[in-house]
């Protein structure tokens, strides 16, 4: 088996997490793919971008977030109805358990109702396990703003999912 190039190594280590983040952010698989490809093309064009970077994952998340925000801005202008479709898409893996599947669909719908900036913070906190300082660095925010966005987002999710959560707990 031939040795992996640095770009392949980066892809294998981080593309899964980037995809999940992008899918949650853009709510469209095609958009997540476009942004993911854009990130890797940027890295191929300017390999020096990674020189001296200590936290590769955080750096890549930041690149992905910026590219996704650009894409969403363009889409927002072009297609205002996209959010309607967005709630339909689930960024979570399917399961055979009907109760759990219902919970995941509800969670996906609840996430879809959050503003994109809250969704990004909630994703990075819950599914990436980042601290507020790390989230702030990725999203270019003050840590307090990241924390408050997380609290607002989580409160909305709790409000929306509580009945179902209590039922299947």
């Amino acid at each position, binding site marked *: 088996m031939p040795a992996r190039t640095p770009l392949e190594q980066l892809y294998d280590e981080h*593309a*899964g997490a980037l995809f999940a983040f992008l899918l949650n952010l853009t709510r469209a698989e095609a958009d997540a793919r476009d942004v993911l490809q854009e990130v*890797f093309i940027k890295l191929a064009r300017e390999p020096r971008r990674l020189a001296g970077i200590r936290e590769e994952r955080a750096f890549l998340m930041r690149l992905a977030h910026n590219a996704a925000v650009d894409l969403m801005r363009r889409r927002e202008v072009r297609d205002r109805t996209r959010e309607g479709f967005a709630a339909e898409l689930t960024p979570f893996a399917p399961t055979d358990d009907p109760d759990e599947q219902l919970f995941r669909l509800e969670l996906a719908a609840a996430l879809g109702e959050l503003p994109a900036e809250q969704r990004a913070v909630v994703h990075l906190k*819950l599914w990436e396990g980042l601290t507020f300082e790390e989230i702030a660095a990725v999203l270019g925010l003050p840590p307090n703003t990241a924390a408050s966005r997380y609290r607002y987002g989580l409160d909305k999710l709790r409000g929306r999912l509580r009945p179902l959560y209590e039922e299947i707990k």
Partner: protein
Amino acid sequence: MNEFEQRLRQVPVKPLPPEWRAEILAAAGAVQPAPARPALQERLAVGWRSLFWPHPQAWAGLAAAWVVIALLHLSQRDEVPARSANSAPPSPETLIELRQQQQMLVELLDLRPGGDIDRPKKSGPHTQLMRALMG
């Protein structure tokens, strides 16, 4: 992290479609790396050379002219205090004229409304009392 957050965290995210790897890496591999930008020092040197190289003799002549102008300027500046030091003392007529002008100026100042620059101050009641006691 509370129970609700832990519960959400356990929900697995959708896996990355495996077929994308080849496609995305191929697209990235087709991109040529951008040429490295030269360092600031090197860019300055290049800019300097491109500015001076076409007509080096003209630039050298201009620089020499500036050096001559600067030297002349410096030498003239050094002469000014020397000249004033070497000049003769003013004549008695000049001194008289200067004194007259000075006197005229004092009179003018004294005549101006409220012009009481050198006028002695009116002594206050406290001073008058002191004078009476002393005197």
